[in-house]
């Protein structure tokens, strides 16, 4: 397996990925749902590795997040039906398909999407030897700007958008050269089973491109419950890098590469430094004394070492 560490030097991030007002609306909708639909799941075993060695790590809105001592993934024990219901929440859907939401996403994420498409073009060519006219299935993409970019990139011959809230008409793809599974793992109660099912839609020599937030990232392990952008039931599965490898292995995939090119851990921790636990002297010292270039180097170190909170994966079906 090729392991690679991808990192980028970026200008200081001056733009939040979400519009504050819209993000608060999303959180409010989620909070109302969570309060009205508490989880009563008895089974606490880690859904990634099956370990019973788990412990409480933090809670959000009285929902407990657990940490697996064996694979270091973070998760919420929650019933499948509850998650299905959450994903169909009309209030949330209406916020996210609104013009304002999509326009704000375009404004804040355009450069990220451009880079993502270029990265996908490169990695698809790397593993398939071509990157145009391919059959592509995109799972759960909720951003029109992102969908448009992939469709116009030349990568796609046929493009099917599945499990998306977007009212976009696409073609049916029976077997895909490329499956895009972006930011979907965070909703999964049984991620290996879901990825096993994805295999049925992938050609024998096709590739899965997946990205996800990681539970082993610097920002979440530093801020824990103080991390504003993590909330139930939007994020119930935050695998560690090791856990992610296990999920893919259990689902019958061969990992071609896993990188952690997230650029925002330090920024996120810095922004929320008053929420860092009292006992975390090192990080507090670092944030209080380091200059901008040290913080930037630290972020690069996180990326290179697989310690940032965002992972990109390319995998193929194991033969």
């Amino acid at each position, binding site marked *: 397996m*090729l392991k690679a560490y991808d990192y*980028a*030097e970026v*200008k200081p991030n001056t733009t939040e990925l979400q519009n504050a007002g819209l993000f608060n609306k999303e959180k409010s909708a989620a909070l109302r749902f969570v309060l009205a639909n508490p989880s009563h799941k008895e089974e606490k075993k880690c859904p990634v590795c099956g370990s019973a060695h788990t412990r409480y790590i933090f809670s959000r809105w009285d929902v407990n997040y657990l940490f697996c001592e064996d694979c270091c993934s973070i998760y919420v024990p929650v019933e499948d039906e509850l998650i299905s219901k959450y994903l169909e929440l009309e209030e949330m859907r209406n916020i996210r398909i609104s013009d304002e939401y999509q326009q704000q996403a375009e404004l804040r994420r355009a*450069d990220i999407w451009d880079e993502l498409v*270029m990265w996908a073009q490169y990695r698809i060519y790397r593993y398939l030897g071509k990157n145009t006219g391919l059959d592509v299935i995109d799972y759960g993409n909720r951003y029109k700007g992102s969908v448009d970019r992939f469709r116009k990139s030349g990568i796609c011959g046929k493009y099917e958008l599945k499990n998306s809230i977007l009212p976009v008409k696409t073609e049916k793809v029976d077997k895909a050269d490329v499956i895009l599974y972006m930011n979907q793992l965070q909703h999964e109660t049984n991620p290996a089973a879901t990825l096993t099912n994805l295999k049925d839609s992938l050609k024998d020599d096709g590739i899965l491109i997946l990205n996800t937030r990681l539970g082993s990232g610097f920002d979440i392990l530093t801020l824990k419950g103080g991390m504003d952008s993590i909330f139930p039931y939007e994020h119930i599965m935050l695998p560690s890098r090791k856990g992610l490898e296990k999920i893919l292995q259990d689902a019958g995939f061969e990992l071609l590469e896993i990188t952690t090119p997230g650029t925002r851990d330090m920024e996120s921790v810095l922004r929320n430094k008053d929420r860092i636990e009292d006992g975390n002297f090192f990080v507090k010292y670092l944030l209080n004394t380091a200059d901008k270039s040290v913080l930037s180097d630290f972020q690069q170190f996180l990326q*290179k070492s697989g310690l940032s909170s965002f992972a990109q994966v390319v995998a193929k079906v194991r033969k």
Partner: protein
Amino acid sequence: MDKIRAVIIGMGRMGKTRYNAMKRHGGYEVVAVCDTNEANMEGYEEKKYTDWKECIDNSEMDAVIVCTYNVVIPDIVCYSLGKGYSVFSEKPPGRNLDDALRMKEAYDRAESPILKYGFNHRYHNSVIEAKALLDSKILGDVVCARGVYGKAGSPDFTHEWRNDTQISGGGIMLDQGIHMLDLMYYFMGEFTEIQSSVDQLVWKDMPTEDSAFSILRTSDGKVASLHSSAIQWRHKFSLDLICTKGFISLNGLLTSTNSYGEEKISYYRKDLEQKTGGLGKPMEHTMCFDSDQSWDYEMKEFYDAVVNGEPVKLGTIYDAVNLMKMIEGIYRV
């Protein structure tokens, strides 16, 4: 055939490296090893020879793996091809262009020959990535390149066989610089115009050069500069590829000595509108690698050619002749 029965001629460092790669592959059965220095074969259980011709004549096998000094490579390659064996040979393809052409003649005379030369740098992860990036056209077309391949030298440097022209045919350019030249040729095509300065800048009491600067140009106008140096005083590998829409840089190389630094590839797109970063500092992506499978990939390709009838893709006799033509151009100037 699902196992290649092979003999290895030359059991120095490269012979041992190939032996290990063949064992890891699992599709090879080494039936004999050969070296003029018996000490090099100590610890090996295979049949041992000190005369390469005797080894080839007395072994039942399918392939000959040639890991000897440059001077004997052509003789062994030609003899083996003449006997109908498949041949994998270390670089360089002989000491000079004449040697390479002699092997090409033997190749042309042979019936369904399989001949591959070991240019393992093409199989390094950073090089594989660079090739994919170029072929994908995301960064446009490569128009020029800068390469530096440098060695630290050693206390006995002037007395090494590599610097004995009778045995090696050339100095640092032929021994190590040929890898950089091969990569530039791989990425950009054949260089038809060559200017160079081949010098003994420090090691003056040896017959070969310790430094070779070259400016190379392809027939379609791509330009490259190459510095092959034995006076870098440390190990260094660096190759920049400038493309019409971006830039690729390869730095460091994973080798058995771990002395060329971390192997990595960085790339960025041209960003004159400063969308990804400040002017002069576009968003740059870097990948680093923690393993070198180049020997394994190379022996796999040779296996696939011999057993599965697949064509030799890299390190063909045509590559060998072209490279030696360019090497001769560098030395001639």
